């Protein structure tokens, strides 16, 4: 019962955020300088083929000659009834444009997250358990160095070494399992530094906390103290960091997609923004906002399950 209420509020928030994101996308695309119909026509027919007749045809056929508020209201009404329309550029259904690309993004993103966890958690735990030691300093330096390298540089480096020089892995694409390794590795390396510092901080704080020291004083074994006493508090900052990680992933994915020629949601968004493909941008914006909202809500729930203080605080608030 305790989870239903916050879940409801989170869903309501998500719906409002999605609406706000879609509205902002629409307003931004309308406010950008240049002729919207011309951008759509250029993307649709190619710049070399662009002519005045086709620009006017696009303007009329896509309804871009109607008042802006009417266009917005039409779109909102359509979305409310479950229709998000067709891409202005390709004239294909918007969901058919987005779905396969979202799958690529989530697949590589998920793998990247796993890589980042595989790198960051051991490094963060090791550093946190030996806070102030050489190992801790080395881990901090490595994280700082990795964080300072842009993901596309890292990706390009992996390509040159592992694909071009050693021929171990394919340069690009997403049609075989092997082709997903380099982008996942690059993404994981981009996400790992921040996560490792959060893990390190959580572990170090929990290890130095009075309850851990008291447990050790009582004669509880080191491993039991680590996992039974300090483990759960150490997990809290890591879980709380997941929405930030998801944001970083969305920000960094465009570069990864470009370098590894992945046909994902990031490159679709960039292309659609440049082409002013309003239905695609608005729908993708809504989906991404909802995904972030889901991550945030899931994190909230996980935090309540892990941290009894949050459960108690919610129960007290409910009673009051």
């Amino acid at each position: 019962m305790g989870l239903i209420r916050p879940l409801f509020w989170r869903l309501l928030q998500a719906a409002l955020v999605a609406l706000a994101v879609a509205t902002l996308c629409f307003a931004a695309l309308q406010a950008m300088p240049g002729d919207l119909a011309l951008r759509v026509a250029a993307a649709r027919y190619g710049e070399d083929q662009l002519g005045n007749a086709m620009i006017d045809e696009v303007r009329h056929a896509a309804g871009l000659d109607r008042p802006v508020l009417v266009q917005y209201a039409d779109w909102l009404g359509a979305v409310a009834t479950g229709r998000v329309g067709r891409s202005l550029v390709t004239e294909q259904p918007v969901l058919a444009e987005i779905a396969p690309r979202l799958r690529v993004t989530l697949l590589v993103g998920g793998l990247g997250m796993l890589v980042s966890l595989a790198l960051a958690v051991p490094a963060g735990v090791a550093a946190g358990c030996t806070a102030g030691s050489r190992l801790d300093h080395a881990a901090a330096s490595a994280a700082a160095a990795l964080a300072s390298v842009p993901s596309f540089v890292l990706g390009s480096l992996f390509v040159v070494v592992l694909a071009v020089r050693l021929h171990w892995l394919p340069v690009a694409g997403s049609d075989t399992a092997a082709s997903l390794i380099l982008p996942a590795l690059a993404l994981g390396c981009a996400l790992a530094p921040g996560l490792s510092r959060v893990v390190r901080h959580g572990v170090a704080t929990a290890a130095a906390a009075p309850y851990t020291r008291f447990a050790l004083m009582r004669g509880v074994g080191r491993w039991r103290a680590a996992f039974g006493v300090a483990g759960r508090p150490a997990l809290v900052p890591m879980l709380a960091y997941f929405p930030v990680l998801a944001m970083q992933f969305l920000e960094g994915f465009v570069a990864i997609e470009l370098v590894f020629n992945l046909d994902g949601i990031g490159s679709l968004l960039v292309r659609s923004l440049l082409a002013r493909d309003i239905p695609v941008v608005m729908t993708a914006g809504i989906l991404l906002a909802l995904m972030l909202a889901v991550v945030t809500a899931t994190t909230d729930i996980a935090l309540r399950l892990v941290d009894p203080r949050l459960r108690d605080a919610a129960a007290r608030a409910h009673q009051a």
Partner: protein
Amino acid sequence: MSLRISRRRFLAAAVLPTLPALVRPARTAEAVLRVVAPWEYDSPDPIETGYILRRMGIGETLVGVQPDGKLIGLLAQSWAVDPDHLTWRFRLRDARYHDGTTVTAADVAKTLQRVRSKAESLSAIPVAELRADGERTLLIRTTTPFAPLPSYLTDYAGVVLAPSAYDADGRPQRPIATGPYRVTAVPGTRTIEAAAFADYWGAKPSIPRTRYTAVVLGDTRASMAQAGEADITFTLLPQAAQAIERSGTAPILRLTIPRVRMMTMNLRLPQFTDVRVRRALSLAIDRTGIANAILHHPPSAATQLLPPLLTGWYDPALPPLKQDLPEAKRLLAEAGWLPGPEGILVKDGQKLQASMLVPAKRPEFPVMAQAMQAQFREIGFAIEVRPAPSNALPSAVRDGSLQTALLARTYVNVPDPIGTILPDFASDHPVWTSPGFVDPGLRAIVRRYIETFDEAALPPLRKQIVTVLQDQLPVIPVSWFEHNAAVSNRVAMDSVTLDPFEQSYLVPAMRWA
């Protein structure tokens, strides 16, 4: 003790997290020609992506062009114009679609009717009537004599698809065409797999299977060429082409084509109204330096609008465009532009300055713009470089905000450059060129050219057109494009030909080494 990780162990460790993706089996290494180019197949409509279908030998138009510029019949076996110079009849081949059905004149008429208002070149044909005249003849009647009509029918928007390729609303949904290759799979927008079409009307391709991959980033294309993951890699950045060549992994084919990097100006602005100013700006540009240092391809330096490859449109007798700073300064002084503060010339209180839109999409453009900025500065002309999306230029032309821009423009949208010269220099509403250029003499020559059916009478008209463009400089050519491709050692080098008209990759002619 050194820690050694074998390739097998490394791969095993790396593949572990990707197990979910393994549900799709890896492709076997069969003899598939892997073609890599920048363009995505993001729509099944030939108006938008017909050029990919045609380049890969999947789709065909009525008429095509050979690399030497000679028009050839593709779906049209032959054509003729009546003595009235208005009525054309195109006799179709006995060709089949990839679904086995026969190509009819009614299909072709329907295709052209659907696309002709939307495609730049086709929309320029003054069509009075377009219909099937029997099963195998297409009739096109124009309102005025239009001699380059067959050339215009090479427009890729006119790629003919089978009736089964369209949905109930008449929208193309599947690439069921007529070319020597038929599509076998389109997994996403970046890959087209094709196999030789057994019922093709012409010569059968030597390589039975192809795979087209769109790779947007130039560096990634170059890496694929170097890693041996592509057999033919098109459109490489100059530095990348050099790096591939140095690595010895794939020889590079190069060709200077009629795609021109040029500067456009708003000729309605007082700075550019005077032709002497335009000539001075042209004389300020170090084209050889740009071609050598930035483009790494010396033959790219433009000496006139169109390159020597277009023999009919290149006039070796024209005085070449070149850098001559003293002459540039003399022309500006003659035009009344006098030295002002900070070295910028001034006339009637107006500074000789302008903003320059520079498309950020092409990596060489910002560098070229900076070089030109420095070169113009030497004659007292200040430009402010403004990076912008490439399609910002037509917006600026239409709303009148354009001052100058650096752009790339192909003059072979159809094989006859008149298809681009007409809208760019002889129309009232240009999209891609300098607004405000009106030359009644040039318009009359262009009109005469279009109405001239006697081939022998065309060369002098071409010469007149290029002479006016070289003299009046409505646009200032800077460099021609280098069309290039990296060819892997799996492919016989002598079987690969670059098409200067960019209409075809000529895949059916390729063979394994």
